[in-house]
């Protein structure tokens, strides 16, 4: 019984999966540079964002090209 009870085999704190952060990938509509930032509410793929400055050319219009949760091994 104690094997299924969770006492014996799973003693100690269980490695609980943390809520991973979703990343939004943007592409500048003026110079084409791609950059990323944490997901903000109601972002969606192919949304044109008009109030975020491009870190390369300073252009203000960019388009969201992807949104996903990076795999753990690749997150920096």
């Amino acid at each position, binding site marked *: 019984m104690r094997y299924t009870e969770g006492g014996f085999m799973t003693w100690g704190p269980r490695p609980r999966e943390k809520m991973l952060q979703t990343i939004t990938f943007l592409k500048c509509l003026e110079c084409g540079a791609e950059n990323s930032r944490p997901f903000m509410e*109601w*972002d969606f793929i192919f949304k044109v964002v008009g109030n975020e400055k491009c870190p390369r050319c300073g252009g203000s219009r960019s388009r969201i090209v992807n949104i996903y949760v990076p795999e753990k091994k690749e997150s920096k």
Partner: protein
Amino acid sequence: MEKGLSNVFTAFLSPSAAGGENILSIIISFVWLLMFMVFFLYPSFGQRMQLSYMLRDLERKLNKLKSIKDEIRQTAIDTIKKVGKPDFDPTPEVDRLSEFFVIPPESMDPYGIVYKLEHILEIGELSYENEVKKLAPIAEEHQVKTLTNLVEIARGINTLYRVVRHYYLLGKKTSNIYLVLQIQMIMPQLVEIAEAYRMASVAFSQGQPIGDSIGVLVAAKLSDVENKKRYTVARDTMVEELELENRKVYVVRAIGPGGTVGRPGEAVKNLVESLPENPKMIITIDAGLKLEGEESGKVVEGVGVAIGGPGVDKYKIEEVAKQRNIPLYAFVIFESIQEAITPMRESIAKAADVVLQKVRKLLTEKVEEGGVVVVAGIGNTVGVG
């Protein structure tokens, strides 16, 4: 007499110390005898003990389910308040909607059951969406759709919790170890699904793309070109006409970025019937359940219609394809049931480009230049515009 009896015992227990008093060993032997008698006269005693262990374990997991259920309910209420700004407390309405049910049509006479099912599901969806709209008067249309998904998740976890509680209480009431055993066996999976629901509720409360969005994402990426015509063909579903590798491609998908799966079956049917010539093939792209041990984001191909769910859309596409003798090709992106409803993983998102390449290759190999092809991206379009 008494002395004699204990002497016998002492002698029996420790013959070497014959005659010596040993109260402790007498007590221990009585306890042993008692336990032996209990097991002998009451054979189900061991089972009863096991049952109480199992019930305790179940109770703990049931409490976990309850806490997840309450958390999702709170997320739904908070999001509706934040996004929809109703001028009343939406809590009782959310509770009412999480008890909402849909009765499937009678299948004793299966004739025409697909259309009955479609009818019932459509009424259910529409009325659900309208109810949520009333709770969120200032939310945009796509947000209303996503909120509807969120309330549906609250309903799903509520149902799960109620069913598990039913079996727990029934097992407890009837002391039926076999009933308890069955629910206890599947409990770890149920808790896992509940956890997935919890993460799904977070995704829907913010409009994030989920794993199931991958089919729609592929279609969106495929039609991400200039010079295309876009129009609605069925409720929440659109067609985009474009040229690809010198072939005429009609891309069908749900209209985003609100959470909806659209009506891909109805859309493909309407589209094919309206085209001047028969398409050379219909390609469906959808997320599919992987088997344990397979990697997420793996792309596989085959024939048939890749659409999950109640089967109405699948049936409609098969019907029209059969009538007109159109080949059906399908691409499936593997993911687990948890990944399908939680925020999209990198491995799945990256699979979109793989599918795109495969679709292009299939087009150039199997369809001659100038040919017409229908591509349908299936899935929930939450977070895909």
